[in-house]
């Protein structure tokens, strides 16, 4: 009997006119999203190749260790085709020199601002916004629609257990919607494979989990639709309830979560932070200058009773010690400034992390957020992408600085070296190109399977939501008045 009921459900969905329309729209959207993602991936990749070539040429003409700088590039990740995340919004390269801190700059939107008008359009967005709506469209009248049409009376006039009916409703509708929808997704994957995008085992694993998350997310809305349909008498009522719920779950709650977090855990802006640092530095330097002046006045006072020759002899005897004292004071000042700056940066990182934690915890009340977060985490295009690259760029900057230090002979950065030879001079402006064959390469951090450790939390949340919706629909239907 269960088979008969399931068969009826998927036939009902497949034979309904709205299925043909929604299937066509979904197929176009999925293939379009993959097509756009693929194109952006190719553009990103070719821009990076060109930029690397340009950098290599610049390095060939580099003649001074003092001026030597480099750039590290954030390589394209195949999974950005499916889940753009913040990938388009953050920078693609970081400038590296032996003295400068590295920050990512030049987002794709800064080059092609027209892309920013419509923002990211990817498979995860199609699933999050469009497929969830379609799931509602096919389930809002699952139970009450049959009651209104009268078919529910006829079905239940046979010896059909209600539990079996609602289970078949769930499974049959799922099969009718989820299975056909995998077709355009598979076509999209085929397009990616045929485009020879390099996908290794880790990519496939993460892609598989992303598709699992997409399936779970879709199922949440399907189960939700059936549950609301089993709790209301009229299809028009359930449609309205579901539409309002969709707006809340997909559009409102995720943003409210962010707003609440921003309000509860304020994070200073970069300008505020710089202002704090500058204010502290001004105070400290002012103190330092005052102390230094006081020190020199004290020294002058020590020599006040001496004649000129004695003063000169006294100065000669103490000058080195005084310079060392002044240098130590200056170093102490620099250390204190660096410590304060590091403390503020650390505090900023903590506050950001706390804000993110709160924002994501609150917005996870919505399955749309849970899905978005898990998708970005799997694709490696989440909010940590920028931090991950900037941390790697900072690490590389230190390695680069050490390399420059060693290669320049540890001096003032004015050493030059001939190609393939040793140190040949210590003056600026030598015209010989540098031998950069030993320059360390930047290792781009990968969002690999280690990031998946946090994924079960969101997948589990989606699974629990499915079970909860199904339980509500199940109990609602057991008590449903079919008259």
């Amino acid at each position, binding site marked *: *009997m269960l088979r*008969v*009921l399931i*068969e*009826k459900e998927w*036939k*009902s969905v497949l*034979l*309904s*006119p709205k299925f043909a329309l929604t299937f066509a729209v979904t197929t176009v959207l999925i293939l379009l999203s993959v097509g756009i993602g693929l194109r952006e991936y190719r553009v990103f990749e070719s821009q990076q190749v060109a930029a690397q070539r340009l950098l290599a040429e610049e390095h060939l003409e580099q003649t001074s260790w003092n001026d030597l700088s480099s750039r590290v590039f954030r390589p394209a990740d195949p999974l950005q085709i499916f889940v753009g995340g913040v990938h388009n919004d953050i920078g693609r390269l970081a400038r590296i020199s032996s003295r400068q801190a590295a920050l990512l700059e030049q987002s794709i939107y800064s080059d092609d601002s027209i892309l920013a008008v419509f923002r990211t359009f990817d498979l995860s967005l199609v699933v999050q916004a469009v497929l969830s709506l379609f799931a509602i469209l096919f389930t809002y009248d699952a139970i009450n629609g049959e009651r209104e*049409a*009268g*078919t529910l*009376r*006829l*079905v*239940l*006039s*046979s*010896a*059909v*257990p209600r539990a079996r009916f609602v289970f078949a409703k769930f499974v049959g509708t799922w099969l009718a919607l989820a299975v056909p929808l995998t077709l355009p997704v598979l076509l999209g994957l085929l397009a990616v494979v045929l485009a020879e995008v390099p996908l290794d085992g880790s990519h496939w694993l993460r892609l598989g989990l992303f598709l699992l998350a997409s399936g779970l997310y879709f199922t949440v809305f399907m189960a939700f639709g059936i549950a609301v349909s089993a709790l209301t008498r009229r299809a028009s009522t359930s449609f309205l309830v579901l539409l309002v719920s969709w707006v809340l779950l997909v559009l409102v709650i995720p943003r409210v979560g962010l707003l609440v977090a921003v309000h509860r855990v304020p994070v200073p802006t970069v300008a505020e932070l710089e202002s704090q640092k500058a204010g502290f530095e001004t105070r400290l330097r002012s103190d330092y200058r005052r102390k230094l002046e006081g020190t020199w006045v004290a020294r002058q006072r020590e020599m006040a009773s001496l004649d000129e020759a004695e003063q000169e002899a006294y100065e000669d005897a103490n000058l080195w010690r005084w310079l060392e004292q002044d240098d130590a004071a200056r170093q102490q000042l620099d250390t204190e400034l660096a410590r304060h700056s590091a403390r503020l940066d650390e505090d900023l990182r903590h506050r950001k992390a706390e804000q993110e934690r709160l924002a994501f915890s609150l917005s996870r009340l919505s399955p749309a957020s849970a899905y978005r977060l898990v998708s970005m985490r799997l694709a490696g295009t989440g909010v940590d992408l920028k931090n991950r690259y900037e941390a790697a760029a900072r690490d590389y900057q230190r390695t680069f600085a050490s390399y420059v230090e060693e290669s320049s002979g540890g001096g003032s950065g004015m050493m030059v070296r001939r190609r393939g030879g040793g140190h040949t001079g210590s003056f600026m402006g030598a015209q010989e190109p540098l031998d950069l064959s030993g320059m360390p390469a930047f290792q781009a951090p990968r969002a690999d399977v280690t990031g998946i450790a946090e994924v079960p939390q969101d997948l589990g949340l989606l699974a629990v939501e499915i079970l909860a919706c199904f339980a509500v629909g199940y109990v609602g239907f057991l008590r449903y*008045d*079919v*008259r």
Partner: protein
Amino acid sequence: MNLDRTNLDPTTEAQPFLQTVELTKRYEDGTLALDRVSFEVGPGRIYAMLGGNGAGKTTTLNLFLGFIEPTSGEALIDGIATHVDPLRAKERIAYVSENVALYPHFTALQNLDFFVRLGGRNDLDREQLSAALDRVGLERQAHGKRLKGFSKGMRQKCALAIAILKDAPAILLDEPTSGLDPKAGMEFTQLLGELRDEGKAILMSTHDIFRAKQIADRVGIMDRGRLVAERQQAELEGEDLEALYVRYMAGPSAEVACSA
């Protein structure tokens, strides 16, 4: 008001297949929909429940179908109380609703196939399904067409074909002839007669006094939840059923007006 039950022959109802015993239903809002209603329908018999809106006919059918539970008393199908074991009870019945609701995107044959298999009959092939549709008078060219373009009469025929193929010992019909044209109504009545002759116990609710008199072996008149009168087919020959119906529905003054 006491039940007006004259000249009933108990031997014809010796083994009732459908039976209500002091069946009472009071809804949560306090409405008394059925008040101690008792009647029986034996195999090979048609029982027509006559009554206006709110008389309790559909409530009685809902209690047989297990859609609601009785406040007291019981509805029995083959001796099984429907509120105790509704699934086992429903294995023994087929049901035809007033506005026959089948799946509009399925063809007549697909609808038949689904509902018949749901009723536990997986042994029927396409030819047998078609034969059932032939029997109820649905034209061959309509068998493979989707139901969304079907008239009420055509849908009624499909529903009856389902009931026939389910081969249940009892059939419940809710206002089966309402909205049918005279020809369709006559064909329908004829089919019901055939099913009775095959031994089915048939319970129908109706407003249609003419058809009830024509086909029913026994007629029960219901008013505001009570079974107020019962007549056997033989008794109706000498009695004006319409006058009787109107008398119980609207009181003696209405009966006079009706006779005039």
